[in-house]
């Protein structure tokens, strides 16, 4: 009889402790007292473990209830409107990239990271130690510092397209300007302001998989990007709203071409100049507003300049300082 009473008292006390724990005002003093109660008698610990098991069941019941709720909500949504179709950009496999994969690494002594660089007008692909591939655009610099538990790289300038091999145990992390990108295993493009010529310090475009972008100095909540989504970040580490993009445009540089659709001439020139040995300039600022649509070779500067000349009625005049100045023909 006494055993029954003790068991019953322990059961009641366990329920009281659980209720107190979940109250929102459980203090350190309460926690200490609870620990003393728990240790005071084996029956206490036994009673508590029964309530913990109950707790687990109740949490599972909550999750199940939520699941039904969510199902109902989702089904209502599907019935209410026609299924939306998302544009999934088609992306060629990286394996089908250039035939030559050049992996020239500047091996430095010991602890120093590996560093890969491309000169102005040069593009190159490097295969990293884990089999991931980084394609570097013109004027880019990438440092690789792989450690046992983490694959970390730093994009110091320019632009890189990554195709990351999956390794759940070793996350792939890219530092770029004000941002940090955590990769779950995917293909994505990272461009610094030096490559885009835009105001934003960093642009991340995801071609497949999922990446998580956060600010190096935790100035904003991390954003999760899925394939076809892009995020730009200011120099201060502020993220702009996510947008969708056409994957074909992002990977163009790797194929040695640049495509523009109604792009102002000044932006076109800024991008082409990243690759051209003879920089283009405009005779007048007003010319910069002229919209350009078309595809240009990044490697054959003469052909691209001729295309610009004939499409826009311009003349390219070589200058003594090495620049090519574009002048309107009309006047």
């Amino acid at each position, binding site marked *: 009889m006494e055993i029954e009473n003790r068991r019953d008292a322990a*059961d*009641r006390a366990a*329920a009281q*402790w659980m*209720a*107190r*724990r*979940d*109250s*929102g*005002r*459980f*203090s*350190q003093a309460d*926690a200490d007292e*609870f*620990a003393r109660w*728990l240790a005071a008698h084996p029956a206490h*610990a*036994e009673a508590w*473990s*029964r*309530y*913990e*098991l*109950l707790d*687990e*069941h*109740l*949490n*599972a*019941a*909550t*999750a*199940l*209830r*939520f*699941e039904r709720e*969510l*199902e109902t*909500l*989702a089904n209502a*949504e599907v019935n209410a409107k026609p*299924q939306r179709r*998302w544009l*999934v950009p088609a992306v060629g496999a990286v394996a089908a990239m250039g035939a030559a994969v050049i992996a020239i690494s500047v091996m430095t002594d010991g602890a120093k990271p590996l560093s890969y660089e491309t000169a102005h007008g040069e593009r190159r692909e490097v295969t990293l130690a884990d089999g991931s591939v980084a394609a570097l655009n013109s004027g880019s610099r990438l440092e690789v510092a792989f450690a046992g538990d983490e694959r970390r790289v730093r994009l110091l300038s320019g632009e890189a397209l990554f195709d990351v*091999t*999956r*390794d*759940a145990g070793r996350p792939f992390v890219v530092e770029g300007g004000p941002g940090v990108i955590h990769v*779950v*295993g995917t293909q994505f493009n990272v461009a610094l302001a030096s490559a885009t010529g835009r105001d934003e310090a960093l642009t991340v475009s995801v071609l*497949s*998989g*999922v990446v*998580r972008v956060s600010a190096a100095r935790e100035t904003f*909540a991390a954003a*999760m990007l*899925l*394939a076809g989504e892009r995020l730009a970040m200011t120099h201060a580490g502020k993220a702009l709203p996510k947008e969708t993009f056409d994957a074909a445009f992002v990977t163009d540089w790797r194929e040695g071409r640049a495509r523009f659709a109604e792009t102002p001439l000044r932006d076109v020139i800024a991008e082409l100049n990243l690759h051209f040995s003879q920089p283009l300039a405009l005779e007048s600022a007003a010319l910069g507003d002229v919209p350009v649509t078309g595809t240009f070779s990044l490697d054959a500067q003469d052909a691209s300049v001729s295309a610009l000349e004939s499409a826009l009625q311009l003349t390219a005049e070589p200058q003594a300082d090495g620049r090519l100045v574009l002048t309107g023909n009309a006047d």
Partner: protein
Amino acid sequence: MQGEMGSDQGQRLEAAFRENRTILRKWLIGRLGDVTDADDVLQSVYLRIWTYAETNEIEHPRALIFKTATNLATNELVSRRRRYLRTSNAEADEVEAVRAVGPTPEEQSLLREDIQRALAEIGNLKPKVRRAFELSRLEGKTYAEIAGLLGVSESSVEKYIIEALRILRARLRPGEGAKILPFSAAGARV
């Protein structure tokens, strides 16, 4: 390339994420009442499923996404329930009170039948007891908040919760006769 997920599986997962993102986020915001918490949970869902998919075949992406989301939302509410006061004057401070790693998609240790029964038994509680219990469990409200909503004292709310726990424990008797869990350091969870 070891352990690489088939690109087909990757694409199906992405499509499922995309199709369900709006609804998931809407539901999470409604459930958790907070956009930041909802987005945090949403990100954890993506990461967790992605990691899981690297070593597992996924037959029903949507079901897995929903299950993971509801499990993580439940975890969030559990941790809210277990906020505790460091000192009597301090702001309620959230402590690492729950398992650091919540239920994973593959974790299915509890019998669905038992869980259904638990749901039914909660429905059989007296209205005020049930209401207090659900506000605590399904919305992570503190007893002070529940007291305000129900127009009763905080100590009454605590009594309702104790009553609910004792009744459910008596009616459900989880694990009875099957096994008595050894008490572990898990008791220090509080």
